């Protein structure tokens, strides 16, 4: 059963390659807007570029998880999930993981390139990478939760960010503080551990929360 579910998730993504490439292109477009608007002052950029990377990542995850359940809801697959006797939590978990794999991982892979482009120091780049690897699964699963909550509503494009962004704040605070710490030469392990704790708290409970939310919002 597991093999079939994973196989189908992968083939849905690979048959819509724009689902993989568009978030990446979007990420690079937004990143490249900042130098155009703020001017090429190097000192300013050294200070704000980690924040820019994080903000762009947030925009990308919000946009990709926005209509996460829309197709499944319109096709009636959610109803099949809710009346099925197999483990729906497992399927939802795999959906979160594959969504992360195809929308956030490409961004993370290209972070070294972004670091070279913006002349970020090696240590800072390493910490940005670490916070993104740990933080983005949390962001994606919260975004998917927002999408489950508003699944049955028709005009929900702005509603999801409004619901979801406040829940992003803990991840943002600790990522920013880790990046800040490394840039002034302090230890950043504590922040990374807290991010890890957030990840390990969110990921296991999210499938159960999603199943419950889907059941509530199916009749909206």
């Amino acid at each position, binding site marked *: 059963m597991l093999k079939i579910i994973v196989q189908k998730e992968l*083939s849905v993504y690979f048959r819509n390659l724009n689902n993989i490439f568009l978030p990446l292109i979007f990420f690079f477009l937004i990143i490249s807007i900042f130098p155009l608007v703020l001017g090429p002052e190097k000192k300013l950029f050294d200070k704000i570029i980690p924040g820019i990377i994080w903000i762009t990542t947030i925009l990308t995850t919000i946009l990709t998880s926005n209509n996460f359940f829309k197709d499944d809801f319109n096709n009636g*697959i959610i109803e099949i999930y809710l009346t099925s*006797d*197999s483990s729906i939590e497992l*399927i939802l978990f795999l959906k979160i993981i594959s969504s992360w794999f195809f929308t956030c991982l490409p961004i993370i892979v290209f972070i070294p390139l972004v670091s070279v482009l913006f002349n970020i120091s090696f240590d800072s780049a390493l910490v940005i990478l670490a916070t993104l690897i740990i933080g983005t699964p949390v962001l994606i699963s919260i975004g998917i939760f927002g999408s489950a909550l508003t699944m049955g509503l028709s005009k929900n494009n702005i509603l999801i960010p409004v619901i979801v962004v406040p829940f992003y704040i803990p991840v943002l605070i600790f990522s920013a503080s880790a990046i800040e710490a490394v840039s002034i030469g302090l230890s950043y392990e504590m922040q990374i551990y807290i991010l890890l704790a957030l990840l390990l708290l969110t990921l296991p409970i999210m499938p159960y929360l999603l199943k419950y939310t889907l059941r509530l919002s*199916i*009749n909206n």
Partner: protein
Amino acid sequence: MEISVNSASCYKNDNLIFRDINLTLKNSDIALISGSNGSGKTTLIKSICGIQALESGNVSINDVDIENKNSTYIENIIYVGHKNSLNNDLTVYENLEYLSALDLSINSNNKLKIEEAMNYFNIYKYKDYPVKNLSEGNKKKTSLARLVMTKKKIWVLDEPLSFLDDKSTDIFINLMIKNQKNKGITILSSHIDLSKNIENIKHLRM
């Protein structure tokens, strides 16, 4: 096995959808729910599946409320909705494979079973077509093909006959009669009067 709907009422946004519906079905029963548009057929079907909450009354199986999620209920109910429950990007075969993975009563090594289901509804030739390229009738047949594969006994079907041509309707009626012989329970909503085709059909007008 006995499934019963006891004085069920349902409201949506303070509008009454239906009131005081009673229905009791035993093994080998087929119930046809009919009624005009907006009379609450789909809502009743959804509440039998536990997707829609009732305002008052309950649905019970073997005298246990379905809200208690007893295993007889969860292991036996299969719902084929008004929507096709198919993924448009996957082929007919892949969709059936996915749907059978969601159904624990089907063995996981089920290639033959899926092919049998496709042959039953004459959609084998569309095996490798993406579902988005199929006609509405063939999509409906693909989603009904789940019923050929499953061993579940309580079939809850919302408008299964829409988009089907005469020949496919006969094929589908035979499938329901087969479930009747296996002591299964079928609940379906339709505008078509099936009392000529099926003996002992229970009729619920809403």
